[in-house]
C-alpha cells in the first residue's frame, strides 16, 4: 500500500526556522561583482575606441586615402597603398576561401558517414586548426606557399595563407547554417525526384544563405584585421604603390599601422591612429551587415 497524506505526521515547525538565514547583502554584493566584471570589459572597449578616435582625428582626412606612405614626411603621408592592398588581399581571400569552405561544410553535413573515421578526423582537425595561432599560419605560408611553391611575397601568397586561416571559421558557421535547415525540406525535394545535389543546390544552400553569409562576413573581418602571418610574408616593407595583380608586392592596413607604431616620431603615431579609425569603421560596417543579414533573413523553421 502506498502511503496517503494522512500517514504523514504533521511537521512541527519552530518559529523562524523557515526564514531565510542568508542575509540579502552577499546576494546583492555578488550581483554587483558580476556586473562590475562585465563593466570592466565594456569600459576598456570604450576607452580603446575613445583613445583611437581622439588620437587619430587630426589626421583622419582625405590625404589618408589619396597619399602614399612616406618615411620622411608624416605630415602629408597617407595609406592609399595599404587600403588598396587590403581590398586586393581580402577580395582574393574571399574568392578562394568561400567556395572551398562551403563545399567542405556541405560534405561534412550532407555526405560521408558522420561516424566514419575520415569524418571524425576532419572534424577534430578543423576544431584544432581554428585554435592554431595565426603566426603559425604565417610559418606555413612562408615555408610552403612563398618558398616551396615559389609564389614569393605577393598578394596571392597572402590570400592563400589567410584563406587557410579562416577556412575553419567558414566551415564551422556554414555547417551550423546547413544543420538548421529542416530535414522535411530535403525529403520534400527528394520526393519530387530531385537528386541529392539538386536538393542541396536548389533547396538546402539557398535556405542556409543568411547563416552562411553572416559567418562568411565575420570570417573575412577576422582576415582584414590579421597582421601576424603577413609579417612573415613580406607585407612589412614600405610599399608606396598600389598592387596591380596577384603577383604584385603589397601591404595591408594592419601592417601599415604596425609600421607606423614602430616609428619613433609622434606624427607617425597620429597617422597610425587615423588608419585604425578607417580599419575599425570598415569592421564595424561589416559586423553591422552581418547582424542585419542575420536578423532580416534568418528563417525560423
Amino acid at each position, binding site marked *: 500500500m502506498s502511503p496517503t497524506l494522512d500517514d504523514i505526521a504533521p511537521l512541527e515547525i519552530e518559529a523562524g526556522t523557515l526564514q531565510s538565514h542568508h542575509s540579502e547583502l552577499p546576494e546583492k554584493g*555578488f550581483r554587483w561583482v558580476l556586473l562590475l566584471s*562585465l563593466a570592466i570589459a565594456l569600459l576598456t*572597449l570604450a576607452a580603446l575606441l575613445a583613445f583611437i578616435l581622439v588620437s587619430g582625428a587630426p589626421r583622419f582626412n582625405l590625404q589618408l586615402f589619396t597619399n602614399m606612405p612616406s618615411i620622411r614626411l608624416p605630415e602629408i603621408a597617407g595609406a592609399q597603398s595599404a587600403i588598396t592592398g587590403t581590398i586586393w588581399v581580402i577580395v582574393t581571400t574571399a574568392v578562394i576561401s568561400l567556395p*572551398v569552405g562551403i563545399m567542405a561544410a556541405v*560534405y561534412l553535413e550532407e555526405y560521408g558517414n558522420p561516424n566514419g573515421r575520415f569524418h571524425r578526423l*576532419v572534424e577534430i582537425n578543423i576544431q584544432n586548426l581554428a585554435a*592554431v595561432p595565426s603566426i603559425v599560419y604565417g610559418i606555413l605560408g612562408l615555408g*610552403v606557399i612563398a618558398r616551396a611553391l615559389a609564389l614569393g611575397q605577393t598578394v596571392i601568397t597572402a590570400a592563400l595563407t589567410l584563406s587557410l586561416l579562416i*577556412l575553419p571559421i567558414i566551415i564551422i558557421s556554414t555547417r551550423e547554417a546547413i544543420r538548421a535547415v529542416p530535414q522535411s525540406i530535403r525529403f520534400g525535394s527528394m520526393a519530387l525526384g530531385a537528386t541529392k545535389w539538386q536538393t542541396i543546390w536548389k533547396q538546402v544552400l539557398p535556405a542556409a544563405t543568411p547563416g552562411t553569409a553572416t559567418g562568411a562576413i565575420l570570417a573575412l573581418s577576422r582576415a582584414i584585421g590579421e597582421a601576424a602571418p603577413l609579417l612573415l610574408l613580406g607585407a612589412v616593407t614600405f610599399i608606396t604603390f598600389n598592387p596591380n595583380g596577384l603577383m604584385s608586392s603589397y601591404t595591408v592596413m594592419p601592417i601599415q599601422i604596425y609600421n607606423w607604431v614602430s616609428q619613433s616620431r609622434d606624427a607617425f603615431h597620429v597617422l597610425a591612429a587615423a588608419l585604425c579609425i578607417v580599419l575599425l569603421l570598415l569592421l564595424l560596417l561589416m*559586423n553591422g551587415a552581418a547582424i542585419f543579414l542575420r536578423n532580416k533573413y534568418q528563417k525560423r523553421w
Partner: protein
Amino acid sequence: MAAASVTLRKDGGQIPPSFRQSSPRYGEKVIGVLLLAAAAISILTTVGIIWSLLVPTIQFFSNVPVTDFLFGTQWSPLFASPEFGVLPLVCGTLVITGIACLVAIPLGLLSAIYLSEYARPKTRATLKPILELLAGVPTVIFGFFALEFVTQVVLKPIFPEIQVFNALSAGLVMGVMIIPTVASLSEDAMAAVPHGLREGGYALGSTKRQVAVKVVVPAALSGIVAAFVLAVSRAIGETMIVAVAAGLQPNLSLNVLEGMQTMTSFIAAAGSGDQPTGSIGYQTIFAVGTLLFLMTFLMNMVSIRLVRKYREVYE
C-alpha cells in the same frame, strides 16, 4: 500513347517513362568527390603546417643540440656569436600569458555567470554582441592601445619606473581581449546545464547566488575548464599585442615592468627580416614555431576533449 511506351519490369510491375532514371548521374559522383576534396584541404593544411615546421626544425637541431635549445638561458640567435637557449622566450611567453589569464579567467567567468544566470534575455541579447565586438578588434590596435594608453596613461603614474615596452601592459590588454572567448564558451556550457538542476537547488532553499556558484558552475565545469584552456592557448599564440607593446628584448626575468620577448614576437621579428632559406636564422624561426605549435596543440586537444565531455552529459 503513354501506355504504349510503358516498359515491363521483370516482376511484371510497370514504370512510367518519366519515373525512370534518365541517365547514370556521373555529375553527382563528381560533385561528391569535389566536396570530399574540399573537406580534405583541412587535413592537408595540418600536414602542411607540420611539414613546413618539421624539415627546418630537424636541420636546426642538427646544428644546435636539443638540450642547449631547451635549457639554455641566453637567446641571441642572430648575433655574430649566437646563443640558442629558448628559456628567455618561454619565460616571456609564460609571464605575459599568466597576467592575461589573471585578468581574463575571473572576469570572463563572472561575466558569463551574469549573462547566463542573472541577465534578462533582452539584456543578454544586447550585451553579448557588444562584448563580442571586443573580440573583433584587430590585435595590432590592442597593441597600440597597450603601448600608448595603458602604459603611458594608466600604469606610468602608478609605477614611475615602468619601461616603455613592458610585459604588464601587454598582458593586461591581452587579458581583456580574451574575456569574450572565456565568457562566451563558459556561457554556452552553463546554458547547457538542465533547468531541473537549478530548480532542485531552489527547492532546497538555495539563493540565486548559491545556485549559480554551487550548482550551475560545477555542473558546467568541464566546459568552463575548456574555455580556460583555450584562453591560455590563445594568450600563448597572440603575436601583435606583444610585438607592439612588450618589446623585442629577450629577458629571463619575472619583473613585469620590464620589456620581454615572447616566442611569437621573436618569430614575427625574425620572420619580417628577409632571412635566406637554409640559414640558421631562418631555421630558428621554425624551431621556435614548432615549440609554439606543440604547446598550443596540446592545449587545444585538452579543450576539445573537455567540451565533448559536457556535450555527452547534457546534450
